[in-house]
């Protein structure tokens, strides 16, 4: 990590170099075809989520009582009215999936923002203060990391009550130690560098040193971590929903949809297959982007 930051420009020239730097980044990122595909998929998913009300053929909550467990259009008995079939209470699977995109993206965005802001702040403090504060923060993070993430999230939700909002809080708590560790390690690597000393000598205060001088030079690993935890957040939230501790029915959240459909798996495979496929494709797309970002930020590694 340290040598990665070493071949960056000095911060003074950063403002001038920025457009060129983005172009350079993009030229590396573009080379990774999977990452570009993932990025397009995510873009499309965002559009689907935003325009869900226009695109979805039905309401995600409307129960068509003549169409329980109707198969999808491409097998016998399916109709174009319900392209991906209907669920056990006659709701259109496609429409629920389309609205479900909103939940997954929302969960990912909120969890990552909360975990990242808290984690980066704690990591900066730990790396800067050292001593007892550092030790205290890091031991607390060790404690959180000692529990399997899903188990801790599950227990936290059991304490504060099931529901989407509480599930997001629990997942954010479980994911933030990674940001703390990453930020602290980056700060420790950077703080003795000449440009930091120079800024300190020039009279920059602690806050300025933390946020303006050092943090921008630690961004690359944090961005990669953000994509990773975005997909983790979606997976964990779906798992909690599946276990009945996340979003509650009739919310069209993908994990919750799976839980509701579980007992029908041997009679109607489509009610189980499509929500899971949606989760898999979304997580896959994010991970593809994450891999691409990692390679693009660290071109040396890619060429080795």
């Amino acid at each position, binding site marked *: 990590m340290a040598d990665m930051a070493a071949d960056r420009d000095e911060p003074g020239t950063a403002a001038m170099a920025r457009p060129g730097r983005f172009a350079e980044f993009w030229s590396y990122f573009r080379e990774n075809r999977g990452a570009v595909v993932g990025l397009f998929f995510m873009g499309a998913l965002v559009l689907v989520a935003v325009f869900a009300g226009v695109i979805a053929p039905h309401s995600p909550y409307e129960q068509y009582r003549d169409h329980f467990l109707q198969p999808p259009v491409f097998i016998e008995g399916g109709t174009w009215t319900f392209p991906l079939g209907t669920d056990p209470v006659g709701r259109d699977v496609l429409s629920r999936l389309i609205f479900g995109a909103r939940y997954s993206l929302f969960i990912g965005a909120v969890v990552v923002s909360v975990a990242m802001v808290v984690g980066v702040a704690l990591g900066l403090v730990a790396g800067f203060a050292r001593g007892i504060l550092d030790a205290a923060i890091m031991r607390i993070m060790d404690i959180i990391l000692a529990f*399997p993430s899903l*188990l801790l999230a599950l227990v936290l939700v059991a*304490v504060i009550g099931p529901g989407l909002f509480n599930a997001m809080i629990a997942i954010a708590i479980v994911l933030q130690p990674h940001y703390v560790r990453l930020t602290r390690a980056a700060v420790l690597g950077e703080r003795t560098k000449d440009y930091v000393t120079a800024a300190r000598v020039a009279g920059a205060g602690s806050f300025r040193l933390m946020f303006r001088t050092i943090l921008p030079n630690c961004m690359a690993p944090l961005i990669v971590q953000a994509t990773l935890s975005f997909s983790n957040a979606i997976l964990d939230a*779906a798992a909690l929903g599946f276990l009945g501790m996340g979003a509650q029915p009739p919310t069209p959240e993908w994990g919750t949809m799976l839980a509701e459909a579980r007992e029908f*798996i*041997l009679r109607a495979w489509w009610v189980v297959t499509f929500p899971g496929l949606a989760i898999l494709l979304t997580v896959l797309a994010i991970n593809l982007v994450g891999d691409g970002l990692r390679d693009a930020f660290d071109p040396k590694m890619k060429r080795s």
Partner: protein
Amino acid sequence: MLGFFLRRIGILIPTFLGVSFLAFMFIRVLPGDPILLMAGERSIKADRYQELLHQHGFDRPIIEQYGVYLGQLAKGNLGVSIVTKKSVLSEFLTLFPATLELSLAAMIIAVVVGVPAGMIAAVRRGSIVDHGVMATALVGYSMPIFWWALLLIIVFSGWLGLTPVSGRIDLVYYFKPVTGFMLIDSLLSGQEGAFRSALSHLVLPAIVLATIPLAVIARQTRSAMLEVLAEDYVRTARAKGLAPRRVIGIHALRNALIPVVTTIGLQVGVLLTGAILTETIFSWPGIGKWMVDSIFRRDYPSVQGGLLLIAMIVVFVNLVVDLLYGLINPRIRHVR
């Protein structure tokens, strides 16, 4: 060397205190009064309430209560399940072999498939095999395993009728557990078909649980291998005319496996997380399902004890991995 060991173990003390404090606090921060919870549907008189409060020590300061809790832990007393009235520790120990068997089976699948897959991908870098392995690994890594389990059930249990859907063995077989491992016990019992039944119950959950570690191990092996293959000593080995098979299989693999061993150790947390979902779906009677059931039954002493024991397992395994790594790779010992 001893110093390194002691330092690593010393770091554990605050972690243990923290983990136990968290488990201790868990019951106290729950909404609702613990005494009223115990009384359940029956109402309780005020003086009896005070008596119970005192008897359980809930009227003492939190720190003192925590001290008492630690004292009980030291004696191996993790409380009693509200539902089964059995000791939490003995419940845990009865169920743990099931989880261990499932996890070991999953780990074996992950290593046996993952390491060679990663090796081949590295050796044939850029080929279609490499792309295939890496794409499959990425899909596996992104897999929501609870859905993957359901898919496998649809195909192998539903359509093909090959595997059972739940449990560890058919109910027609009964024998006393000796090792707690159903595969071994079924063989020891000597009953015809018992081993087959146990195996067919194990296959699907083990595959599901192996999926993510397998993907991680394959990716890790590939990148470690690529790094090692670029080293001078590998070139030297090649230059002196060793067979490529020998260079890759012995010289390169040995060093490439060092980071992979760490990765394997770090999968324990992943396995336990996966066990929660896998065991719930396949009704596998292990600690993952027990934890979920306990949470839903509001059996808080069990949740508390399980939380503590599971965290201890993770911490312990991480410590062993750390120490092993120090043994294999002397450079680590002297850092810090």
